[in-house]
């Protein structure tokens, strides 16, 4: 046990701390883009014109229906070979991961938002329109604020998933928590110790995220939208 603590202190923690920043730099933008995509796609799938709805439905089924690893391989390894004329887009490992996570997360988030939107009674939309609001105003200032509150627990859940599947970035050569952990495990042959600590790092990230999400829920709480029912 002594050996473990010394090893953890001297080798594992410094190594993982370097990867931790990379992970955070992946997770934060990816989850923000994911929520932004989810809200816009979710709203358009409920209120948009038919061709838009069809297109976005296709987006969601594609990104929910294929493995995330395959999507990451596509963004990182395959995209450079997709040429439009003379132009090919080459993403850095970081950007490939952020794009991949955001698009996948957005597909799931849009489902939570869609569910939230559908839970708001149609009458409120009618009331907003009866006051002379445009359809866009009715959705953004009446329906979405309520739907978002209803969808928040689900959206938070998706962010927590994202924290964990961010570990897949390591397979497209990003030196995140998992990537750094794996190279240390390989070079030191101490798999058990290293991966236990890697796991604890993710647990800590998820715990912090859950705490922040709870604060967000409390901040947005108003009568009629409580996070707990008496």
């Amino acid at each position, binding site marked *: 046990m002594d050996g473990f603590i010394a090893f953890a202190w001297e080798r594992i923690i410094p190594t993982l701390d370097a990867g931790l920043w990379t992970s955070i730099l992946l997770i934060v933008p990816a989850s923000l883009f994911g929520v932004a995509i989810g809200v816009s796609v979710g709203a358009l799938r409920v209120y948009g014109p038919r061709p838009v709805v069809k297109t976005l439905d296709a987006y969601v089924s594609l990104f929910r229906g294929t493995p995330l690893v395959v999507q990451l391989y596509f963004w990182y390894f395959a995209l450079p070979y997709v040429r439009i004329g003379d132009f090919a887009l080459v993403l850095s490992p970081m950007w490939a991961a952020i794009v991949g996570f955001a698009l996948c997360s957005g597909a799931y988030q849009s489902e939570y938002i869609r569910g939230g939107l559908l839970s*708001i*009674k149609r*009458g*409120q939309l*009618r*009331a*907003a*329109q*009866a*006051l*002379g*609001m*445009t359809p866009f*105003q009715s959705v953004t*200032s*009446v329906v979405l*604020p*309520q739907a978002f*509150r209803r969808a928040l627990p689900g959206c938070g859940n998706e962010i927590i998933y994202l924290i964990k599947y961010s570990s897949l970035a390591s397979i497209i050569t990003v030196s995140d928590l998992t990537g750094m952990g794996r190279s240390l495990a390989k070079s030191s042959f101490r798999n058990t110790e290293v991966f236990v600590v890697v796991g604890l790092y993710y647990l800590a990230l998820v715990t912090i995220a859950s705490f922040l999400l709870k604060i967000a829920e409390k901040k947005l709480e*108003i*009568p*009629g*939208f409580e996070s707990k029912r008496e």
Partner: protein
Amino acid sequence: MDDPVILRVENIVKTIGGQRILDDVSFSVKKGHLKVLIGPSGAGKSTLLSCINFLSPPDSGTISLDGKAVDGKSRKELLALRQQVGMIFQDFNLFDHLSALDNVRVALVKVKGLDKRAATNRAMEELARVGLADKSTLYPAQLSGGQKQRVSVARALAMDPKVLLLDEPTSALDPELIGEVLTVIRDLADLGMTMVMATHQISFSAALADEFLFMERGRIVERGAPSQLLARDSGSRTQSFCAKLSELAGDGHCEIAPAPRA
């Protein structure tokens, strides 16, 4: 009787799912008058009201406000029409995430473009008018049904509508809460607000209405002054419908001969 006509509804036809919900309905409302739509459920009263502000656009026919026919295909004209025609719904349809004050204020800011200060003042005025100045910070979940409906009246009035459409404003309320909403409606009628109201509160509205329109199967089958239609020997559909309602309620309110409106 030379008040100008504010709202004219001509030959409205509306079909939903192959069924003719409104079949060539026409009427007009003069400034300061109250028309009351009566009739059995499914007669088309609610649909008629929501055709007037194009919440469900009529298939054919014309709606004219202040003598100007509204082009239902022009988005701009529709939005302008809706600003000038207030609507009260049976189930209130307050915005659940906004306080009473914000429910009244939101359209003043977003639609009328008032600055926040002016909108707040106006919204508080309207809440005071319906007796809810002290409830302005409460959310819909914290209000009773009667209070919610009064907030929705304040919300509609804040837009300075030329006409107010009321779709069974008391039907979703507990009996003991109906009175407070009816009082607000009576005050509006006394102040000369132009209104079209669908209701089952026949004896109440008889005292206020300038005309009853009795609807059945998408048509206006009878129209006339309440006193005339409700006269016991009139043999009118309105009278027999009212008698049936009061028999069910057991209050025998149909016989009253309403006093002519002052």
